[in-house]
């Protein structure tokens, strides 16, 4: 921004801004001089009480004859003078100022209501506890409702009557399933290998090498494949769902869906949850296979056993009901991850930062939820006796 000189800022030495108030009969004259460039940081501030004690009805005039270059730095000073004058009941006489500065000064209000800082309230444990409890119960209600509508939509779609488009569902399934094969495979292979390694070191001491097959088979099928696959999917797909829905909310896309009359649960939540529910059990079976393969490779390399013996031992050690148990767990994990991540996306704020918060929350809630649910399943299995 350049005023009153054709020179570019870099080629000219700036003289420091100066101001001086001379008391006159009818009030005061403020003489301004030098260059007032905001970015130099040298611009003085008009003292808020600079006109205190002046008689009401007096005039504050300006003398801008010595003024060099100026930008908003001068306007900031003049605004300070204007507010001080208003506070002291002094009239301002702009006529000594450059025309352009007068125009800008006219845009500025006479006073500035400093926004009061929000009142700080002390920590009240009961209030906090009550608020948290109500929040959690509300959230539980929302999630149950979402779960119910989704379940209803799922039932309807089984009867081919829901307003869900096959193309959405297939796109979701592709994103949640085949594209996750690599990462689910790597994670489960390594888990199987690690289990075999840990088991081999211990079991070899008792010459019980072959029981590595039992250890790996049971651990992978019953726990690890289901939990690890769910954790990977919570991070990969759950986070993506939450971020996508939160972004759609920020762009008013969710509002548009509602106005057109497409239920959000049918168009977004249902395909997402269904896709996870379809792919997760399949990924679990794939994870079991790859996990046992990982164990097989390590056991063969480290122990004195044959491949055929290991396979036989595995088949004996892992009955079908273990698979059923793991399979059911992975379905439950899928529904939980799908519903919570969609829910977190739907309640997210509308800013870019809120999208990040929603994605993080979805992943954290997903992972903690999977492990907590797994613990519940372990207790149930113990009671039922699987």
């Amino acid at each position, binding site marked *: *921004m*350049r*005023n009153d000189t054709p020179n*570019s*800022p870099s080629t000219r030495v700036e003289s420091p801004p100066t101001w001086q108030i001379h008391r006159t009969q009818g009030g005061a004259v403020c003489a301004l001089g030098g260059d007032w*460039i*905001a*970015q130099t*940081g040298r*611009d003085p*501030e008009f003292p808020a009480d600079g006109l205190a004690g002046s008689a009401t009805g007096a005039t504050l005039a300006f003398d801008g004859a010595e003024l060099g270059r100026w*930008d*908003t*730095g001068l*306007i*900031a000073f003049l*605004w300070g003078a204007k507010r001080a004058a208003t506070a002291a009941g002094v009239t301002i006489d702009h006529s000594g100022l450059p*025309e*352009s*500065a007068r*125009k*800008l000064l006219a*845009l*500025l*209000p006479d006073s*500035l*209501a400093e*926004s009061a800082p929000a009142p700080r309230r002390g920590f009240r444990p009961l209030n906090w506890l009550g608020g948290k409890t109500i929040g959690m119960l509300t959230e539980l209600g929302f999630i149950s409702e979402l779960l119910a509508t989704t379940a209803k939509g799922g039932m309807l779609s089984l009867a081919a009557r829901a307003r869900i488009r096959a193309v959405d569902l297939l796109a979701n399934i592709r994103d949640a399933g085949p594209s996750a094969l690599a990462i689910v495979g790597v994670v489960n292979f390594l888990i199987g290998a690690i289990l075999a390694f840990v088991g081999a070191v211990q079991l070899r001491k008792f010459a019980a090498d072959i029981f590595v097959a039992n250890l790996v088979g049971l651990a992978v099928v019953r726990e690890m494949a289901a939990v690890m696959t769910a954790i990977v999917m919570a991070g990969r797909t759950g986070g993506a769902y939450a971020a996508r829905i939160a972004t759609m909310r920020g762009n008013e896309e969710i509002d548009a869906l509602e106005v057109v009359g497409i239920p959000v649960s049918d168009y977004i939540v249902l395909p997402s949850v269904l896709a996870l529910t379809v792919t997760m059990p399949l990924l679990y079976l794939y994870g079991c296979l790859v996990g046992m393969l990982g164990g097989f490779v390590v056991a063969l390399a480290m122990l004195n056993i044959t491949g055929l013996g290991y396979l036989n031992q595995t088949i004996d050690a892992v009955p079908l009901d273990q698979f059923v148990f793991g399979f059911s767990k992975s379905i439950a994990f899928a529904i939980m991850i799908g519903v919570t991540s969609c829910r977190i996306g739907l309640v997210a*704020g*509308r*800013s*870019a*930062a*809120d999208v990040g918060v929603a994605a993080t929350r979805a992943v954290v809630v997903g992972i903690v939820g999977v492990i907590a649910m797994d613990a519940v399943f372990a207790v149930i299995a113990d009671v039922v006796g699987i």
Partner: protein
Amino acid sequence: MAAPGPAGSGETPLLALRGVTLAFGPKVIQQNLSFDVRRGSIFAVMGGSGCGKSTVLKAMIGLLRPKAGSFLVEGEDYWAATEARRTEIGRQRFGVLFQNAALWSAMTVGMNVALPMQMFTKLDEPTIRRLVMVKLALVGMEQAVDKLPSELSGGMRKRAGLARALALDPDILFFDEPSAGLDPITSSRLDDLILNLRDGLGTTIVIVSHELPSLFAIADDGVFLDAQTKTAIAHGSPSVLRDTCSDHQVTAFMRREHDDADGDKKV
């Protein structure tokens, strides 16, 4: 219209495009585009939807490198300069108001305006706070300093975006569709504000718009882009183009809405 020449007597124009061609891959948006922006003018880049107005703006604010031609900032070839120099020019001289204001949504309005000052000047916090308040007060937004962008209406967001564009006291302001999505009253207030800023701070303003009322109200120079021939077909201020341009397409564009606004001229 005649080819653009230096506006004053031998004075370098503040901004100049010389034979600029803009393209996304093989798709040419505008070609052989030349115009000058005089210091202190409000220059309008006009044209119908999809003719590449915003793309021209992108090339001028450093977001899109032209395929050919040069963009001169006070005689200095902007796109031939190093990236560091381009950033420096952009920071010191350019302020941009984006179409949707593009306020950083995680920050309050005051922090949005303060951020460029905190990053690029050595001013202390009280001074920055003081300057933020002045800039917000200039656009009438001093009450909203602690609000988040999501709490603002469209017009308020535009004004806050304008305050942010003013943060580093640029001498060139670029506006992308400033009145898009604003009601006529808000839009005309924004026009007044733009005029005041130009008159008050001497800022040169480049404005991309197809809002005729606002163009007639503030622009004193301009260029008309055509989507078919993919180049500039007329140079001059909006009202001159409306009244005297020989190109039928330009006058039709400039008059149609004007007639609609007046109604009686249509008969």
